[in-house]
């Protein structure tokens, strides 16, 4: 169990001075992951916000080895890095344990990088894949992804006269990872640093692939004031839109159950991307949203109870 005192003593491995927006959830997640990580670590990331804000030549925010390859191949790239490590370790060229972490956005994970991720997990490489899920393609200017929630306005699922935003539900990426029988998978968010740190440590102590999906609110893409990032992250959990849970050795565990489950509108109402849902004529969409959050939450609770 990582204590805050202990984490505070860890050196910052992601420097300040990077170019992320004020209130960016993504870099908070990266800092938390690196603080908690069992060192040394070697990292890979796809093209995306994180790469752009952290590496503009000749600067870098990374105090750990970081390789950016392309957009759709973080998991394939880390497969190659890990394979190289294995053989160089065997040959005595590398003499220490190294942990491998890939940081991908939801676009690079749920969508374009999904095949590479599935392949790498199936092959069983020893690496942690962290999805920094801000629920749309933020780097290119807020386009919908398969992680974008129902009803959200994005620039490619605009809330128009006829179609009120994205009409599909988000993909349950953690469940898809579990379907790979991955040794460890978890979902967390930046508001609960303790939960996040524990999950990172567990994941890195696994001898095989592991996956953590971290909800990282995006002030620009979601449309809320930058000081509300942690609140957005907390409300997503308190409304059960974003359950904190994990899958370890074939067992589900729910890490947090709100004392009083808040209506999902509590989370939605603070975000411009859902503003149109609050028009009187869209009340049915809000109802539908709540129903689906309830259905998914209850399904997850059932799974954790029965260890389905």
């Amino acid at each position: 169990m990582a204590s805050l005192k202990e984490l505070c003593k860890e050196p910052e491995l992601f420097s300040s001075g990077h170019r992320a927006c004020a209130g960016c959830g993504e870099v908070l997640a990266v800092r938390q992951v690196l603080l908690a990580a069992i060192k040394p670590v070697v990292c890979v990331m796809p093209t995306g916000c994180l790469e752009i804000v952290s590496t503009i030549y000749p600067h870098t925010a990374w105090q750990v080895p970081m390789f950016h390859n392309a957009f759709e191949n973080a998991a394939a790239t880390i497969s190659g890095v890990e394979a190289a490590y294995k053989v160089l370790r065997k040959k005595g060229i590398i003499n220490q344990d190294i942990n491998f972490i890939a940081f991908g956005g939801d676009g690079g994970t749920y969508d374009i990088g999904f095949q590479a991720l599935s392949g790498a997990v199936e092959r069983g490489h020893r690496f942690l894949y962290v999805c920094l899920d801000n629920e749309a393609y933020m780097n290119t200017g807020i386009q919908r992804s398969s992680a974008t929630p129902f009803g959200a306005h994005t620039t490619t699922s605009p809330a128009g006269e006829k179609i009120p935003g994205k009409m599909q539900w988000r993909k349950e990426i953690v469940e898809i990872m579990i379907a790979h029988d991955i040794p460890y998978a978890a979902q967390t968010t930046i508001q609960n640093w303790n939960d996040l740190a524990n999950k990172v440590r567990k994941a890195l102590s696994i001898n095989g692939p592991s996956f953590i999906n971290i909800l990282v609110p995006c002030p620009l893409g979601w449309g809320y004031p930058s000081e509300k990032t942690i609140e957005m992250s907390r409300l997503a959990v308190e409304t059960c839109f974003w359950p904190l849970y994990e899958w370890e050795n074939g067992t589900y565990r729910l890490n947090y159950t709100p004392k009083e489950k808040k209506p999902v509108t509590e989370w939605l109402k603070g975000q411009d991307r859902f503003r149109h849902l609050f028009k009187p004529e869209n009340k049915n969409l809000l109802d539908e949203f709540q129903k689906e959050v309830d259905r998914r939450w209850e399904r997850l609770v059932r799974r954790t109870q029965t260890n389905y």
Partner: protein
Amino acid sequence: MIVAKTGNEAMAYAMKQINPDVVAAYPITPSTEIVQIFSSFVADGLVDTEYVAVESEHSAMSACIGAAVAGARAMTATASQGLALMHEMLFIASGLRLPIVMCVASRSLSSPLNIHCDHSDSVASRDAGWIQIFCENSQEGYDSVIQAVKIAETCYLPVMVAIDGFILSHCMDRIEVLEDEQVQKFIGKLKPNYSLLDVKNPITVSPACLPDSYFEHKRAQAQGMNDALPIIEKVIADFAQAFGRNYPVLEGYRTDDAEVVVLVMGSTVGTARIAVDEMRLKGEKVGMVKLRFFRPLVYQRMKERLGRFKVVGVLDRVESVNSYVSPLATEVRACLYDVNPCPLVPSYVYGLGGREITPDDIMAVFDELLAMNKKGKMKDEVTYVGVR
């Protein structure tokens, strides 16, 4: 040792003797056997390689790049659609100056689907910054893979070695293989410039470069390729000295007294040798020039060697839709532009999708070239050989 091997078997055997750290590959006709045979070497413990059986060619190249950035010797094999799927990653491998070596069994590109030989796949990756070697036969394929490792790791450029799909990849031939120790001694140890796994000296690899720095990186990369020829010729000379087999970047066949030649890449070089012999029997002073490297384009050698002919008929096994002439002919014309007098450089496209090319076809080309020489005038646009 003399053995009977197909081109694929010969290349896989070369890979075994190279014993790379990482091979990441995906099967595709006609190069499937290379990875298949290589994975049996892995399964039998005959190599130290980590074999990554990736889920696509895109991931194959991505994993090779990851391995090479981590300081490992990485190899792969592919063809056709696989090479096309890798296309994006080819530029990243070369942009990062990674000495990855890739075996290619040349095959046409869809659509329509066709599994047979032409050079559409490799030529389409012409601008990706890879050294490209086209082989006449499987012996050269085997030897070139070994040379490629040395070239790649000296130039810090990736190299693809292409043998013609089916024509070489699946044909049994007499191959003289080296001893494992000879191969190891020739290629030496990989000395990477940096390693991502050097956790004490963390580096960020492949950052974003804005307009204030991108251009300089690309210019430096281009210089790397411009500077490759002397290194390549040294590796070729060292190989010839060590093992007695010489493969110059540009080789003339019966060209000493010839005014008219054809310029050819790949297995058709062998066919053209026969055509030249037949023409010579008829008393025609024709020759053939074999081009082994499409990249780097050996323009220095081309000016020296081709400039003195009256007619250079360029035979290309690829269609570059709507280019004025075929890809290699375009290069040759540009290269000889300032040679005075400039040879006629007519352009021929043949053998797409595995359409057979025979000595008779090439002799017919020679008849045309001889007529052009007599008239001092060439047909400007592309001539298609053997299309119905």
